[in-house]
Each structure stands twice: as C-alpha cells, then as structure tokens.
C-alpha cells in the first residue's frame, strides 16, 4: 500500500509538475498525459483511497487533493500552450523571408485584367463631367459633428426634418452630437467656412463621398452609400443657373436623349428647393414600370442656398448667392447599368466585379 499521507501528496505533486516541465515536445506531453491526470495517475489512486478515510480527514485530504489536481491541470495547460507557441514560432522562423531581399525581376505573376468598382467608375465619370463644366472636386470627413451635418445646414436639434435622415451616432462627446455623416452636405459647410476664412470666394465644387443612414438595406438602398454634391457660391447666381447646370450635367452624363425637370421639394438648407428628375433611361421617357409610367426618374435634390446657411458660415447674402445639388452615385450606377439589386455592390462577388472598366 502506497503512502497516502498528506506530506506525500505534496511530494507526488511536485514530481508530476517536474514531469510536465520536462516534456520537450507536444507529442511527449500528450503521451505523458494519462499518467499525469488520467484514470491511472497517482492523483486518481489518491482519489480512490479517500473513501477509506475518516470523514474529517477525508474532507481535508479531499480539499488538498483538489488543489493538487488544479495545479497539475493548469501546469499542463500552460506547458501545452508554450510548446504550441514554440512550435508555431519554429514554423514561422523557418518560413521567414526578408522582404528587402526580394529580387523583383524574378517574381512572376499571372497577367490578369483587373477592374475598378462600379462605384469608382461612376464617380470618376461624374467627376469628369463636372470638371469639364468648370467645377473643382472637394472631399470631407465621414465622421462629423452635429454642427456640420445638421445645425449649420439649418436643421436645428430636434427639428422634425431630422426625421429625413436616419442617423448613426458615434460614441464621442455628449450623446448624439457626433454622427456618421448622413449626406455629403457637411462638406459644403467646410468649404464655405474655409473660403470665408481665407477670403477665397467664389466656390464651384462638387463633393463626392461615402455617407451612412440607419436604414434597412433593400434593392434600392444601402445603409452605406455614396453621394455627390455640388455647390456654387458666386455673385448673381439664380434658380435659372441651377436649372441650367442640372440640365447640362444630365445631357452630358446620360446622353442627348435624356433631359431633366425640376419640381418643388423641401430641404432645410435650400430655398427655393426642388427635386430633380431625369428622363427614365430604361424607357427613354415612354413610361415603364421602373418609372411608374411617368417617364421620369427622381435622381436628387437641389435648391438655392438658404439665407440661414449663408449666415451660419458667415457669407454676406447680399453680395453672394448660390445653389447646391446632390444625388446618389450608386443610384446613377444602378440606373445606368440596370442593376436590379443595390446589395450586389457590397456582396463583392468576383463574378460581379469583373464587369466594370
């Protein structure tokens, strides 16, 4: 009969821990495991002998035994992990490659045609049209404060018109004061504030960019999408100039068979405001299901800059006037390429991506 005294348990535990530490490889550790913690291990034998003890002694011995088992188990796990890491490090080291040593002319890669994304292609085409019309291209950040995304655009806090933009709030500053921009319009505010600060009016710019709305994605909408916004601040700009710019753009981008029309709309940052529609590109204006048999497709919004916006950025509304317009880049792509479901744009299926140039 083995010695089952508690002093001996400590001694046996030490031996087990030494055995674990002495295992040099994962294989060795795996082979040793049954003798360390398995049914035939010393600890298991100890466990069996508890039954023969007096209740009080059993309780104490049981506690000690549990403690020993816990130590052995955790040593085993630690050892396993460190051996695994050593293994991994060995593999990584064997795999090591000093990328400075790469001999470029020896690298052979397949010749394959690449493709820009549909959004990138569309954005470039749109930019090119506007650049040819005399616009510069400006960009702005995607995380904005309430001031740029809403308040400076004449949308005060809690104003019901905020319901037009389902907003993602960012966990910075006071609650609900930092947002993922819901439109590219805050870039207008940046541009105007900068132009005022540097005394560099007029402005003729378009602003493409990514926007976010907390809106369930469907065939026509994504929660993340791209807009392009136009802003003109100059002397003696009128609604007729706005309508003319929209029409020039429409013909230039969609082709000569397509024209535009305006109808009254509402945006807090423009007055008068308008929605602009273009000839349905599917039926060329004859009327079809896509355009609800009207011959027109709504593309975006526009209007003359509201006095409240000019005031917010410190532009003298007596001297300067201007207009803004905006619409979805993805929507344009959808119209032009007869994309049935917008969600394909974020699916990133290679068979979809291969089609654009």
């Amino acid at each position: 009969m083995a010695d089952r005294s508690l002093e001996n348990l400590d001694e046996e535990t030490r031996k087990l821990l030494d055995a674990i530490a002495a295992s040099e490889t994962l294989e060795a550790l795996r082979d040793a495991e049954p003798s360390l913690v398995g049914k035939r291990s010393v600890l298991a034998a100890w466990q069996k002998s508890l039954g023969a003890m007096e209740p009080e002694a059993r309780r104490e011995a049981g506690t000690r035994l549990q403690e020993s088992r816990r130590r052995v188990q955790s040593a085993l796990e630690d050892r396993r992990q460190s051996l695994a890491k050593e293994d991994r490090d060995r593999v990584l080291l064997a795999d090591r490659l000093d990328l400075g040593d790469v001999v470029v002319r020896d690298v052979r890669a397949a010749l394959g045609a690449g493709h820009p994304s549909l959004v990138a292609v569309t954005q470039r085409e749109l930019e090119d049209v506007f650049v040819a019309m005399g616009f510069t291209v400006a960009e702005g950040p995607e995380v904005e404060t309430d001031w740029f995304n809403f308040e400076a655009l004449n949308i005060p806090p809690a104003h019901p018109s905020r319901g037009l933009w389902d907003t993602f709030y960012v966990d910075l500053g006071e609650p609900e004061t930092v947002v993922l921009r819901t439109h590219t319009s805050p870039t207008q505010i940046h541009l105007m504030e900068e132009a005022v600060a540097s005394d560099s009016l007029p402005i003729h710019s378009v602003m493409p960019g990514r926007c976010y709305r907390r809106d369930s994605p469907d065939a026509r909408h994504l929660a993340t999408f791209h807009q392009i916004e136009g802003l003109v601040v100059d002397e003696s700009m009128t609604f007729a100039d706005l309508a003319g710019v929209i029409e020039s753009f429409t013909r230039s981008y969609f082709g000569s068979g397509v024209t535009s029309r305006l109808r009254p709309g509402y945006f807090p940052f423009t007055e008068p405001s308008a929605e602009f529609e273009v000839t349905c590109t599917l039926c060329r204006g004859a009327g079809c299901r896509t355009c609800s048999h009207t011959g027109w497709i709504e593309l975006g919004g526009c209007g003359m800059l509201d006095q409240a916006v000019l005031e917010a950025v410190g532009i003298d509304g007596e001297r300067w006037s201007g207009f803004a317009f905006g619409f979805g880049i993805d929507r344009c792509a959808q119209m032009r390429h007869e994309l049935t479901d917008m969600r394909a744009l974020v699916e990133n299926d290679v068979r979809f991506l291969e089609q654009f140039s």
Partner: protein
Amino acid sequence: MRVSLNWLREFVDLPESAETLRPILDDLGLVVEEVCHTGGGLEQVVVARVEEIRPIQGADRIRLVTVEAGEGPVEIVCGAMNFDVGAHVPLAPVGSVLPGGVVIAERTMRGVTSHGMLCSARELGLGDGQDGLMVLDSYVNPVPGESLSEVLRVGPDAIFDISVEGNRPDAWSIEGVARDLAARLGRPRRTPVVATSPSTTKTSNYAQAGIDDSKLCGRFTVTALRHVTVGPSPPWVVERLTRAGVRPISNVVDASNLVMLELGQPTHPYDADLVAGRSLRARRARPGELLTTLDGVERTLAVKGRGLGDTGEDCVIVDGDDVVVGLAGIMGGASSEISPTTTDVLLEAAYFDPMAIARSSKRHGLRSEASHRFERGVDPNLALRAAARFVAVLTESSPDLEWLSDPLDVWGYVPEPSTIELRDGDVERLLGVEVPLDDATSLLSALGFVVTGSGTALVVTAPTNRPDVRSSAAGRADVIEEIARLYGYSRLPRRTPSWPNAGGLTARQRLRRRLRDVVVDGGALEVWTPSLGGDDDFERVNPSVERVRVTNPFSLDESVLRATLLTGMVRAWVKNYDRGVGDVVLAEFGVVFYHPNTTSQPRITKGGLRGSLSLALPRENERATVLFGRREDDARVAVATWHRVASRLGLADVVVRTSADALPGLHPTRSAVLEDRSSGAVLGYVGEVDPSLVGALEGPSHRRLGILDLDVDALCDPSRATRRSGKVRDPSRFPSAIFDLAFVVPEVVNAQDLAYSLGRSHEYVESVVLFDSFRSSSLATDSRGLAYAIRLSSAVGTLNDDDVVAARSSLIEAAATLGAVLR
C-alpha cells in the same frame, strides 16, 4: 398622407381624373407616390326591403327571404338572423361583382334557388361588422331599388398617397391639398359644414380651461358637449377614415380623427365625467411625474433627454386636481378615455409650441398623427372652427347632443405671422425670371397671403397656416418659392452659367486615380467592404486598442468603425474562395478610423450647440489595400507590385524594411514596412496576411495571401512621400561598364540600404540592381549572399580600366562599412 379624391371634390370642383391630377399635384410639390383605386364593386348593389321570411325545410341555419328591390319580389337564401320583415338591407343581384371580386350567381341550396345575395358590411368592404347583414335603417331613409353607394354616400374613389414636405404643415389635410389645387387651377374653394347653433348654456358654467405655461401652449380651447350617445359612426365617416388608413373606433373618436384629416387640426375628446373638476389646463410637467398614455405605457415626464439642447421639457394637460391626464399634442392619457358609457364630452383643440412637441415626441419615442402635425406647426386660428366641424359631424350619429355655447378659449404665446417686403427685382434676382408683381400678388392671395402695396414693392403677410414662412431675407426666399410653385417650376427658365475659374482635380485626387489605375492594371478587382464591423474582427487585428463605436448600430457586427481594410478584404476573399473563385487579386480604397485617444493627430473640429465647442474626432486615414489571393501569390508578389506602384507614382526611394515589431494583421516573419528613405515616414506595409487571422476568419490558413497596405494620406503628402526630382537625367552617351558584385551580408543589413550605399560610393555608379539573394550553410552565420548588377558610366567620356578598378574598390569599401564582404 392618403388623400381621397372624392373628399377633395367636396372642397373644389375637380372633374379631372386621378391620372390627370397626379402631375398637377407633383408640380405643386405634393408628390404623389402612388394612386390607388378603391370602392368599386358597389355599383350594382341596391337597397332591398324585407317582405317575408320563411323557414326552409330541413335547414335551421338558412332562411328563404323575399325582398322588394324596386322590380318585384326576389327570393334569396340567407344565413343571417339579425333582421325582421320591413328591414332595409343591401342586395347584390345575380351578375354583380362585390369588392372582393366575388361574382354573384344563382345558387340552389336544399332545393331552393337564391337569386342574389344579401350582404354584410364586411362583404361590401364597408367595415368589419360580423354580426349579420348590414341593416340600413339606423343610418338613412332608404328606398328599395336605390343604389347603395348613393344612399351611403360611398362609392368608387381614387386615393393619392401624397408625401407632404416638412415645410408644408398647411398641406397636411384634405383642405390644404384642396387649397393648393384651387389656387393652381383658379377655381373657387368650398368649406365644410360646421355646427352653428349652440344651446343657451355657456361652456364656462360647466367646464374650465387654462394655460399655465404660455410658451409651451399658445392656445387652448375646450368645447363641451352633453347628452352624447357613443356608438358607431355613419358609413361615410367610416369610409373616409378607412380610406385614409385610420381605424374607426366610435363616433366621438372618429369625428375627432375626421376633423384632423380634413382640416389639419388635431383635437382630443375627454370623458367629462372622468376629468376632475371638468377642468383642463396646459402646463409644464414636473420632473418625475407619471402618465399612462392611451397605448398603455407608463411614462416618466420631464426627464432630460439625449441630443443637443434637450432640457426635458414636456407640456402636459392636467385636470382640476392637477393630475396629468395627457401628454399635450402627442397622446392622451388612459384615465379619461371615451367609452361606450360616456355621455358628456370635453373636446380640446389647441396650439402647442412645435419644437416642444418635437422634443417630447422624440424623447418619449411616441409619434402620433397629432404630434406629426403639431411639431410642424398647426394654424393657431383653426381650433374653434375645427371644434364646430367636430360637432357637426358628431351630431349626425348623436342627434340629441347639446353643444354648450361660447367654448373656452385661452391664449398664450403664438408667433406673429411674418411680414416680408418684396421689392421689384427680388423675384428675378432669385429665380432668374421676372414675374410681374401683379401676377405675384394674385398667386399669393390665392394661398391666403395678404398682399398690400404695389408698384415697386409689395408687403406680404403670411397666413397663420404658414409658420414655415420666415422673416427678412430668408422669408423673402420662402415667399418667392411659393410664387415659383404656383407659377410652375416647369415654366422657369434655364441658363447655363460660366465662370473664369478652371475646374480640375487636386494633386491628391490625381494621385489616387493613378494609384487605382496601376493597381487595377496589375490585375486587381476593386471591392467595397463595410466601414462598420464587429468587435471581434477589430480585436483580431488591434487587440485592446480603443475603438470608435456607433451607439445605435443595427447589430453588434456593425458597431465599430474599422481601423484596417484587412479584415473586410480577407472576409470578401474567403467568401469568393468558398464560391470557388478565390484565384484573384482584390483591392480596396477606403477610409479607416483611429479613436482620438489613440492618435497624436485627432481631428479637432467645431462641435456642440451652434458649433461653440472644440471637439476631438477620430483621425480618418485613407488607405489603399491590395490582397493577393491567387494560387502562386505570396509576399514576393506583393513586394514586386509595390516596386511597380512606387515607380509609377514617381517615388524617389522607399525601403522595404523588416520591422522588429509585429505589424497588425500581418505575417510575423514575412512582412515589412515601406519606409521613405529621406523622410523616414512609413508609407504602408507589405507582406502576407497573418495565417492565424485567415484561420480566424474561417479561411484556408495554409494559403499564402500577399498584402500591400498603403497609407494614401502619406503617399499624397510630399513631405512624407519623397518624389523623384522632376529634372531630366540625361543618359550617358558613352559606353557603360557592367559587372556583378556578390557580397556576404549580415542579416541585419537591408539589401536596399546596401544598394543605396553602393550607389553613392562613386560618381561613376549609374545603377545598382539586386539580381540574386541566396542563403547557404557555407556562408557565415546570420548572413546571406546578395548579388548586384552594377553599371558604371561617365557623362564626359569612356571609362578606362583604371576608372573601373577605382570605382569597384570604392564600391567594395562602401559595402565593407556595412559589414558586407565581397564573396
């Protein structure tokens, strides 16, 4: 808003079809989303009088009913039991088609033939009454043979689904839409019938009303009605409500809803006996007050909300014991609800501060038809007309009610309508077309604007239903928009403006285009992966790094702004790999976000109310990342691609340098930083994706994925990404001396650093190109062999042997200073 054409026709003559009116409404800015035709199927249904009822042998659930419908007796088999001889009921004769499309034919049951069908309200689409036939006697005085739709004043209708813009509170009613149509079409407009003869008892002898906070409540009226019979509404009311999408409840509630739809004034009926002291007052809620609203939810009032400038103010209605009985303008309380036993009614019609309603509605997450209207601004002058219309509607189904005279009418603060001066030329300055002031006057007058003055200046005062019209210059634009709207946007001219400034792209935009072109030309497919990801994905690449969170994400998987494009791209690749199309190169251009606490350059910008605070926002970093997933791709391909990109972008010298620290998400021993030699700036990373990351994203971790991750901001910054000099370097016209040098080089020395030293070791060195690197046990430990092809030349003459020998020893000497030994 659902607008019935029949209802509009009560306000203005509209012989046009719905299809003709649609573009007119569109052009007025009342955009029709959809037109839907309804109420058909009643054309052939007539009134029938029950003459005789006989049992059918062997059947106890059906009876044989003989009716008179103007053309002699007709026998019908009927299963309903809720009528007697003499009752008037609807008859659908043989051959008629009911609203649901059911065709009525002769049917024989138990040997008896039925020549038509007697109908329930539900079968006619006129309500959901389940208890038998629609008995007509309680509503009207029907005559057998008369058309049912005429008797009930219901019939075919077109419903416009109009989206009313936020600046048109006046159009949020049938009367409002009719007003625009009448003005555009130049037709007179009718107003609905209102009650005119109250009893001699004064309301003040019966009830009380008051305003305690005149800022929150601008007008508060209470109308008292006694001896009201609560019951169902007449069919025309039910039909109007149903077609507008409002569920009929009882004649009192329905009349209130009808008036709101018709005139735009929300009203609220209280059971007078359940209002303590029959007293209603509007006041500011005290913090912590409780109210159980009609939807059964208990709400704590006047608690400061989220969002800028929300102080938590709620306007409430209290009874004579100062107990809250309703959330003003949004929803009533459950305690004083109209019930079938209600006999006396207090009707509240009020004007509340729009912004206060908007804040309360948002804070309590409670939106109602009433709050929608109040927060956009209800006409403060409308209250008593709406109450009188309510009485007229209710009297039809409760003819014995008593309407007390002189309704209670208390005023608080109501904004004055704006007055704007419109000078000659103002219209042209904004619209680019001259609209004569006389024409402007008549257009505006049709909408209720009061226009005085003439000649060179008009003074225009907005009607009280147009709170959207502001004062001064902003208000001038508001008024001119109204002129343009009625004049017709389609008639406004177009002019293509021009300006002397040239358009164009910035240097950054041009560089980005070039970068995209070179990456795509190298075979990459451009993807678009989500900007918002999950914590797990973030943690996999940037463990324990503070991240930018969205507080109201759709799901936790879309709650963190990405700090790398890597995870999204690996996921996109793995998805394609699983589809069997993983043999591709992917690229993405996009922004990543670093929490302001984790970057030395947060974006400092204007925040807070009125932009009065300075706030640190995330640093947004544009990156271009290329993932090489083709079968043979690895870090080498990524490096070779980088050299191609760098050359195409005209970068002077960027070292591919192995980093002592692991790079986030990259392979620990097969990755490097791209370091600009002269600025020392990091322009990106190159190598392979960490195989454990590929495994964690459920991809094949045995597959090598090359990666090139470029910092576009750095590439576009000339102080970080050093460009080659724009000055042309003339190639030497004399022959070059070409030879190879192979060195044994300590591992710690970078091959490009060595090439750089070699290149500067002698004036004749034209180029130094690495053409071989090799490892062998025969070399010194921690060393490898590097072989360079050297070209020497001189601009002034042919090199002789001495020149070459001298240059060669300079080269070897320079290598020795880095510890490299000629092999």
